[in-house]
């Protein structure tokens, strides 16, 4: 008798403890997301309205040069930024792992950019690449190359974080493996490529996920470094949404863009989640 009452009350307290989290989840995530999707099917301008217009906002969106450029930029930036950050971060970690002198100082130096916001990063690189009194040869001010400058600034910002993650991974590798490799007479680079990198899979995954999220929400770097310019050449999707939502009082188009972003992310993440769940289930 008393045992079952205890079970009920413990279940009740567990449920009540989780209730706020469920409420937040329901209202903030599911509620706001569904509202955003609904708004994208209406003709809302400055204030939300429920006038249904079907997929008209999406038609406008996909005939909009600025949106198409934004998407293209995100793909270019995303690929280059993630790959370059991983590569630079890993190499930095390997370099620091060679028992160099002043390791602590160097570690702080390389991690330091990450402590700064993208706004500061953008501003610093805007000055560095200024065509009249910066590194003259570099390319800011040319529409076709500007996105690569964003990549440079982004990598400078993020490589330190990757380095820290990789360094933790490298330190976790058993000394015996190195000894065994030395006995086998393997050159160091071969050990890194064939043994260490595969063993660091988890570190690469962690860093990759962290970098990918900053790609999707890329906004502040573009705003502070070029404000989307010259022209529309360094626009990004998140900036498109923000500008149309607030500055341009065009809720319908902004939510259509936001929904498109959501669908894209979901269609990438969902198969991955499914795969992981299945893998866990099999095991």
């Amino acid at each position, binding site marked *: 008798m008393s045992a079952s009452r205890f079970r009920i009350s413990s279940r009740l307290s567990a449920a009540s403890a989780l209730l706020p989290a469920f409420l937040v989840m329901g209202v903030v995530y599911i509620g706001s997301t569904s509202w955003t999707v609904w708004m994208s099917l209406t003709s809302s*301008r*400055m204030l939300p309205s429920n006038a249904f217009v079907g997929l008209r906002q999406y038609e*406008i969106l996909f*005939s*909009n*040069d*600025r949106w198409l450029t934004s998407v293209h930029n995100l793909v270019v930036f995303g690929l280059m930024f993630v790959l370059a950050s991983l590569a630079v971060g890993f190499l930095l970690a390997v370099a620091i792992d060679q028992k160099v002198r002043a390791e602590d100082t160097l570690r702080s130096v390389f991690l330091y950019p990450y402590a700064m916001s993208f706004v500061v990063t953008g501003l610093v690189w*805007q000055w560095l690449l*200024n*065509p*009249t*009194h910066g590194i003259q040869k570099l390319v*800011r*001010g040319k*529409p076709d190359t500007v996105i690569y400058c964003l990549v440079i600034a982004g990598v400078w910002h993020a490589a330190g974080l990757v380095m820290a993650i990789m360094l933790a991974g490298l330190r976790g590798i058993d000394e015996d493996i190195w000894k065994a490799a030395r006995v086998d007479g393997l050159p160091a680079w071969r050990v890194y490529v064939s043994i260490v990198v595969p063993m660091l899979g988890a570190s690469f995954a962690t860093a990759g996920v962290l970098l990918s999220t900053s790609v999707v929400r890329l906004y502040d770097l573009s705003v502070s470094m*070029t*404000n*989307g*310019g*010259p*022209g*529309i*050449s360094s626009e990004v999707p998140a900036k498109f949404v923000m*500008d*149309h939502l607030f*500055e*341009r*009082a*065009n809720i319908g*188009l902004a939510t259509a863009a936001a929904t498109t972003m959501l669908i894209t992310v979901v269609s990438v993440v969902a198969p991955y989640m499914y795969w992981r769940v299945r893998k866990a289930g099999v095991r």
Partner: protein
Amino acid sequence: MLADVDALAAEGKWKTLMPEAIVNAATRNGKMFAVPINIHGQNWIWYNKSVLDSVGASEPRSWDEAIAIMDKVKAKGLIPLAFSGQKTWERGLFNAVLLDKGGPALWNGLYAKRDQAMVRGADFRAAAETYAKLRGYVDAGSPGRNWNDATALVIQGKASMQLMGDWAKGEFAAAGKIADKDFGCAIIGSKGGGYVMGGDIFAFPKLKDPAAAKAQMTLAKLMVEPETQILFNQKKGSIPVRIDVDATRLDPCAQKAMKLVADRNQQVASVEMLAPPAMNGALEDIYSQFWNTPAMTIDQFVDKVVGVLKQQL
């Protein structure tokens, strides 16, 4: 939500003393809900007098004349047009050229009536061509530059002229430069000019407390008094919102502006008053894209502008 100021407006004859476009912008459903306090001119040309003297040129009256002057400046190795390549100012420059080539008729046709035929017309094309030509007169550092940094180039004599609103006057004043002596200001236009009027307003939320509501109206009334208007606008760089004040107490540029605004044909409402932000934003993207894409043809540009008008934003 807002208290209307219509009683004050009637008492002070605001509707006859202020330009019609300004009154309209502050009016909803036949009542004034906002107190306009100034008029900002958006399409001034600011030029460095000694640079223009050095090439033997005088104040331009149209963009074609300005381009002729800028050719000489370019030959001297100076920056002809001080430019800040941010979307807002790329749009501002296009609008100035548009008004020059098409006058208020084209301006209102595009922004108020959304007349697609006018956009396909000769005047609009001429504006686009002149705008495209101006790309050749800015320096490599212009993309992303702030407007006041561009003004500084004119002040320092590194550039000959800049298109900017009358707020740029503050930069000249802060540098100790004097209007009509060190620098000049001109409203240019080959189709009879046109003074693009923006401005600031005060609006008052509706209050329950009658004493506070009375205080609101006292403040509103005071802000439009001629003396307040003169003292305020001397500092702000704009011009008084009423045309019956003593212009001689203002600087030479503001005096020019007062003379222009007194002429109904010169009054041009700013695009923000004529079209919603969604449309202005969409057009801004296109102007900016055109400015930064020399490969884009005039036809493509016109098609894109018409495309925005078709969206009925």
